[in-house]
């Protein structure tokens, strides 16, 4: 009994921090409709800035609490700066590109933190006055955790009063429902957005700063906290502060008890809970269906077209250049080229789900990883030859996508994205924690290609043949009746439904197909590297895929290939010039999003479209 009480108190203390971060994220999304990936970076910056301030101001009561408050204020002003300089330029861009822009900020902050504070973990002081423990049922319980348990609800009460007792709060709630109408009543949206973003950043910064006495400040806090915050917000319902509180308590308690009962499965537990809740309540506990949102960036998508003859010729030229590449490139160059090809297929398969199928996936790495691990495990345990592994990889990945997809395709928009992320994290957690079978974070090594494919040139041609063939096949499917149906489901679910199309089944099969093709890429990747590690399934692989697709432009089928080539080439070139390549990449991503809100190829497509339109007008 004592144990249950203590553990549930521990859970509540965790819940308070989760709530601080998640409520900020939720409020920001509610009003601006931006899913702010950089929210975890705000959290991390809060912790680092508080660390520096405490070491300057000292660990006295005034010094410590003053540092926490100042850190929150500093992060708030960084948030305001980010909103006014970056987000204002991209509010009109499609939702996903906004996300990409905020991810650019994540990359920049990661490198900045490394440069300013260095790579090692930093230990902050205990909270003065709260450093001891109190006796609860005969067990010592840290005072600081008790403080956190009280602080969370206090912040909730403060937010409630702010939202229900001030005109600003009324405006925020109104804008959460219909921001265009709020503008049509004379409210300056720009000001409202900035203030909301600043508040959200302050909450995240405070959440991070308050971690100082609990954990060592480190540079992985950002992605870790953003994923947790996403889970909480998705479970609670985007835009709902009360939902965030509820969900934070659920996740906090689940962690507190899960770590005791299933110590190996804590990561899985959280995401299983999220998956179950989303299947029962697709918009979270207190969320509202997304479709009702108004005043968003409603861009009219150009239909996908088969390539114009001139472009076909160009594609043929590119194909010839790729064939001739081994004549010019050495072994290193060829292995880079093979990697580009593999990621191009990965991006094309993700694009099939997102562009053709209209389903945003944040967890495509799951299928890449299933393919990679599938091929590697078959080789390791059943002595499969390389080609057998590559052949079976899409089956493994496709089966995984069938199972996960069954849940995912029932949702839409951000919730769908989050559920795909959840499944990817579950896969990651299983692979990471199942040492006996997958080798855990030691990975699987010695996954080399067959003798005939072991030279860089041979493996390059294998990649070119398989990736090129797979990409052409996916392209063919996009222009087959199945592809048309998928696009119909994407563009107007209601109408597709009304003409008798089984939406869920088509989306489900489309999702699984995309997953299967990612599996091929995964298997090729495993044999290219000679090894597989859990990071093939990590969030950053999923995000790499997203960046490639969005960079290339989601409306064209060539986009993902151009995006993958651009991204991978930038990545490889820059990491050989500078240690801060992530930051440079972040800046490039942001610049590209601002300059090409439709993606690189999307921009070309629109220019071409305008040219044809003008020509059509001129010659009636």
């Amino acid at each position: 009994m004592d144990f249950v009480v203590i553990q549930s108190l521990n859970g509540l203390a965790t819940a308070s921090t989760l709530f601080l971060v998640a409520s900020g994220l939720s409020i920001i999304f509610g009003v601006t409709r931006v899913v702010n990936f950089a929210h975890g970076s705000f959290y991390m910056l809060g912790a680092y800035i508080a660390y520096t301030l405490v070491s300057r101001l000292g660990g006295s009561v005034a010094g410590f609490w003053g540092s926490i408050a100042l850190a929150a204020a500093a992060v708030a002003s960084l948030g305001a700066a980010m909103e006014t300089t970056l987000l204002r330029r991209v509010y009109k861009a499609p939702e996903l590109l906004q996300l990409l822009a905020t991810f650019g900020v994540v990359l920049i902050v990661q490198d900045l933190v490394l440069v300013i504070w260095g790579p090692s973990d930093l230990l902050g002081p205990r909270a003065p006055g709260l450093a001891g423990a109190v006796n609860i049922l005969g067990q010592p319980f840290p005072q600081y955790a008790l403080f956190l348990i009280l602080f969370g609800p206090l912040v909730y009460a403060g937010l409630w009063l702010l939202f229900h007792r001030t005109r600003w709060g009324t405006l925020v709630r109104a804008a959460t429902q219909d921001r265009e109408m709020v503008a049509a009543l004379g409210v300056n949206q720009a000001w409202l957005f900035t203030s909301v973003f600043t508040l959200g950043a302050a909450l995240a910064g405070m959440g991070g700063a308050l971690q100082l006495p609990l954990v060592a400040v480190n540079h992985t806090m950002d992605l870790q906290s953003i994923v947790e915050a996403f889970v909480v917000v998705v479970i609670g319902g985007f835009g709902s502060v009360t939902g965030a509180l509820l969900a934070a308590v659920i996740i906090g308690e689940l962690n507190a008890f899960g770590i005791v009962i299933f110590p190996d499965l804590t990561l899985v537990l959280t995401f299983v809970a999220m998956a179950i809740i989303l299947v029962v309540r697709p918009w979270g506990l207190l969320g509202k269906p997304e479709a009702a949102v108004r005043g968003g960036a409603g861009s009219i998508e150009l239909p996908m077209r088969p390539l114009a003859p001139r472009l076909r010729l160009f594609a043929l030229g590119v194909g010839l250049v790729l064939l001739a590449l081994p004549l010019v490139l050495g072994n290193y160059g060829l292995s880079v080229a093979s990697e580009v090809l593999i990621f191009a297929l990965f991006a094309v398969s993700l694009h099939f789900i997102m562009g053709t199928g209209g389903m945003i996936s944040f967890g495509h790495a799951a299928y890449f990883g299933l393919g990679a691990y599938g091929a590697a495990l078959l080789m390791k345990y059943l002595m499969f030859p390389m080609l057998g592994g590559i052949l079976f990889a899409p089956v493994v990945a496709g089966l995984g996508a069938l199972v996960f997809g069954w849940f995912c395709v029932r949702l839409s928009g951000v919730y769908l994205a989050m559920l795909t992320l959840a499944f990817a994290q579950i896969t990651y957690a299983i692979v990471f924690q199942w040492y006996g079978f997958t080798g855990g974070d030691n990975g699987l090594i010695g996954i080399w290609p067959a003798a005939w494919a072991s030279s860089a040139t041979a493996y390059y041609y294998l990649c070119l043949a398989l990736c090129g063939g797979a990409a052409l096949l996916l392209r063919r499917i996009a222009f087959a009746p199945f592809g048309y149906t998928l696009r119909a489901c994407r563009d107007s679910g209601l109408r597709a439904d009304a003409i008798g199309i089984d939406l869920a089944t088509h989306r489900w099969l489309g999702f699984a197909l995309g997953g299967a093709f990612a599996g091929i890429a995964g298997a090729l990747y495993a044999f290219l590297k000679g090894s597989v590690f859990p990071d093939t399934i990590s969030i950053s692989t999923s995000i790499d895929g997203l960046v490639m697709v969005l960079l290339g432009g989601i409306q064209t089928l060539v986009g993902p290939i151009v995006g993958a080539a651009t991204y991978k080439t930038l990545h490889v070139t820059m990491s050989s010039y500078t240690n801060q390549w992530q930051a440079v990449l972040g800046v490039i991503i942001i610049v590209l999003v601002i300059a090409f809100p439709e993606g690189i190829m999307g921009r070309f497509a629109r220019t071409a479209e305008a040219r044809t339109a003008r020509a059509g007008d001129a010659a009636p």
Partner: protein
Amino acid sequence: MLEVSGLNSFYGRAHILSDVALSAAAGEVVALIGRNGAGKSTTLKSLVGLVADRRGRIVFSGRDISRLSVHEIVRLGLGYVPEDRRIFTELTVEENLDVGTQAPRSGVPHWTRARLFELFPNLAEMRRRPAGRMSGGEQQMLTIARSLMGNPALIMLDEPSEGLAPRIVEDMGRAILAMKGEGLSVLISEQNLHFAKMISDRAYIIEKGRIRFDGTMQALAADEAVRDAYLAV
């Protein structure tokens, strides 16, 4: 009060309005009449700045507003009530009014909650009720009251009688005439000729994005040919 000329609006490449010209004087009720899809809503949305791609001259209270953003236009005293009401269903009646509140403006009627509750007595009885739990007619009254809280000099109502029971339509007509009585200019878009006749001084007929008739309500009532050509279904 409002002078519009050469207004052209586009949704993407679709050309919706062609050279629309209209005007409204102080204290005048003007009706923009046309069939479904004729361009009535687009005209009102263009005037308040909700259509991004609009070209032409829009002068309101002596200022060219054709390049201003929505909130700037509304703050100059041009109120807008959308066709589909768009009340904030989660907010109470009073909170909906708060969202619309702007500072008083000299030379135009100043509205307070109390005065609006006189004009729309139904709303007074449900001030704390979430607006989502009101009838369609009550929501329509609320959306007008909400825009009046901004103390507009001219209020644009997009099809205010649409979907309302006949008795509520009469209430609506009385409310509009009361606003006119306060010295407000009113620009309404309507399909319902009968309702327009009841309240308007002048009328424009719009069809396929062009103004086809411009005259007093009496002139329109007398002109059977125009009515047959542009309004008969």
